[in-house]
């Protein structure tokens, strides 16, 4: 029984490789294989601060964390209240502005999700059709380290 389970298991493991590889080939250009966020979609605190007034800071953390403290001038936009908050963010944006999205730390996912939705759903792009929405490296924690 044991050896048949191992043999069958190995067969299933091999079998699943075939569609998985095919699907990965199909998706090869649609995602970043080395980092969860493509390097071109990330920005450091120093770079983002150098953009000055042409940057809109978007806080993707939950409401209570935003209310507690946030980057000066940042607007809140989280997935929980996306439909409610998005109309407050869009009037601040214009194609020559860059959007910097952050969440709690490097390990959080919210900034990545909000940035993706701003690109895909709100269709934010600069005048030449290039990406203008960036995720802040290290998030709020990193901003705190550099500024306080």
């Amino acid at each position, binding site marked *: *029984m044991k050896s048949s*389970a191992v043999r*069958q298991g190995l*067969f*299933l493991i091999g079998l*699943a*490789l075939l569609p998985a*590889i095919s699907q*990965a080939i199909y998706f090869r250009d649609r995602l970043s294989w080395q980092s*969860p966020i493509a390097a071109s979609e990330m920005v450091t605190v120093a770079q983002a601060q150098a953009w000055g007034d042409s940057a809109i800071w978007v806080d993707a953390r939950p409401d209570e964390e935003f209310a507690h403290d946030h980057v000066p001038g940042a607007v809140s936009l989280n997935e929980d209240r996306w439909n409610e908050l998005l109309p407050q963010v869009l009037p601040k944006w214009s194609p020559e502005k860059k959007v910097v999205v952050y969440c709690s730390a490097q390990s959080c996912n919210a900034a990545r999700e909000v940035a993706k939705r701003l690109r895909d759903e709100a269709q934010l792009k600069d005048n030449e059709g290039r990406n203008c929405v960036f995720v802040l490296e290290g998030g709020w924690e990193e901003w705190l380290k550099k500024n306080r």
Partner: protein
Amino acid sequence: MVKSLVWRIVDLVAGGIFICAGALKILDPVGFANDIDNYKILPWFISVRLAFYLPWLEMFCGLALIFRFLYHGGLSILAALTSVFIVATVAAKVRGLDITCGCFGHVSKNWSFPQHLALDLAILGALVALSFRVAAGNRPRNAI
């Protein structure tokens, strides 16, 4: 007769759950890669490869349970996958990570930790019961 019908239902439900879970993740491999990455156990380049592979493995193993073809192999793999998943979920909770489990793609995004755990333990319980049944020599009829 009634007993074997009950076991057959357990097979179908467990297999169906994994087929469903696998299919949802196959439709959104990038989302699933993000879900794996959120556990902060594996580097991204492994998470993203697993995101393409694991859903298909789940699906084939679920089919193995339903069609009773490669039954023992499918059962063993699913039990192992579920155990690893439970350990990873508990470890993430202990480390204070606020994550979506990714078990049913983004459908399960808003489930709480106890909900995840309860479902996973129930599935593992069913798989272990099926394994014991096979080990005790009550091999399901027609199983290969």
